[in-house]
């Protein structure tokens, strides 16, 4: 059974239907990429997986999203718990205006996840797993805002890892980064997929082809095609997918 399952999912922003009858199954400990042109609903879909859209006024959702078999939209769903379990990394790195250390420790403290004396070790482990520790070891108490853009993004990933999520949602995580920085994040994703289920939304088709195991193509709110990444990029089944990934779209 998939880690995340969407069943007959419809999503509306007031009168506008952004997602139309989405059915898909995201595999555990794999990287799933969602591609499609701007406005196709891919970020909306991603944000449904940890109920980030709930913050927007006038939204309505029909259908179900199951994570580990449990509908996350049921009435008694614990949002704090959900967002701890399903972490998110955004397009622009958004570290808190705190020290590097406190950025990681923050989640541990608000979720009351560790004893005070355990926190330094967890902070180090998290920074180490995104290969940032050696770069910042001597300035853990300086502001995270002083880091480079790519270091900030890795810090945000480390911050997500600190609260031990099972799923990491990434919304265009490299679009603000240069190619070398992008490569570092992609390498990191390959390491993280051993332990986490990753869903990435990206405009960059080459990136989707490089990093993901499975790919979904969305258009005008529909999931047109979903399958193994190598199949989608070498022999897509749907003409619309073919037109989009070969740049014939329009």
């Amino acid at each position, binding site marked *: 059974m998939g880690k995340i399952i969407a069943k007959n999912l419809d999503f509306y922003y007031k009168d506008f239907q952004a997602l139309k009858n989405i059915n898909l199954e995201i595999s555990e400990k794999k990287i799933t990429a969602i591609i499609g042109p701007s406005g196709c609903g891919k970020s909306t879909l991603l944000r449904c997986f940890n109920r980030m859209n709930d913050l927007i006024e006038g939204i309505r959702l029909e259908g179900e999203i199951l994570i580990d078999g449990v509908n996350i939209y049921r009435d008694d769903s614990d949002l704090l718990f959900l967002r701890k379990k399903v972490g998110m990394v955004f397009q622009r790195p958004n570290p808190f205006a705190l020290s590097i250390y406190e950025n990681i420790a923050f989640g541990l403290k608000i979720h009351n996840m560790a004893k005070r004396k355990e926190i330094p070790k967890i902070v180090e482990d998290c920074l180490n797993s995104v290969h940032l520790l050696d770069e910042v070891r001597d300035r853990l108490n300086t502001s995270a805002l002083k880091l480079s853009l790519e270091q900030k993004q890795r810090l945000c990933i480390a911050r997500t890892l600190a609260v031990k999520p099972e799923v990491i949602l990434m919304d265009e995580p490299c679009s603000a980064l240069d190619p070398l920085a992008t490569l570092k994040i992609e390498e990191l994703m390959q390491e993280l997929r051993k332990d986490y289920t990753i869903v990435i939304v990206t405009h960059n*088709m080459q990136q989707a*082809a490089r990093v993901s195991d499975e790919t979904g193509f969305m258009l005008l709110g529909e999931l047109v095609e979903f399958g193994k990444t190598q199949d989608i*990029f*070498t*022999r897509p089944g749907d003409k619309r997918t*073919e037109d989009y990934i*070969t*740049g014939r*779209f329009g």
Partner: protein
Amino acid sequence: MERHFDEELKDLNLLILKMASVAEEAIFKSVEALRRQDKKLAEEVIGSDKIIDDLELEIDERCIDLLATKQPMAKDLRFITTGIRITTDLERIADLAVDIAERAEELVDQPLVKPLIDIPKLAVLAQEMVKGALDSFVKRDIDLARNVRNRDDEADHLRDLVQKELIEIVSQDGSKAPRSIPLLLVARHLERICDHATNIAEDVVYMVEGMVIKHRPF
């Protein structure tokens, strides 16, 4: 939407067709050289090999450039990778035509050990299979491609007939071996040409449908 890339793909397609026509002509002329015992024609085939080699290098380079710079996907990717493979087969086909021309040269001014019956049949089959494979490439026609592939057994059968007959001739009269062995080799070269035509046909099916039929019975 027409892309600039489409123009480059069309140019690549034209280059592959140019190479194909040179290879087809080489087979035709090499078989004619053998049939007519025409030394001049045989030399012409041997001389044409450089054109094929140069085209192969040019096509390879174009394909690699397109892969590196355009990062093609889906049917564009399948077309370019198929282009690289077809070019390799065409180059081998042309080499085999040269081999046949060299055997023809060896046999010029010598009486044939037997009238040529099955070798011309095999030659016609080889030409038809190469033409069919290339037509299927031009028309993106998978039925035609599958049809070519289905004829590969005919080629094996004709080669076996030639082989059997020549072995019998040599076993009866060993002095005929120097004139029999070149014919035996010609049959083998023609059968190999049919194999390359089959490869091209299989690549066309992959290019058009994305389905791999190579090394599979269906």
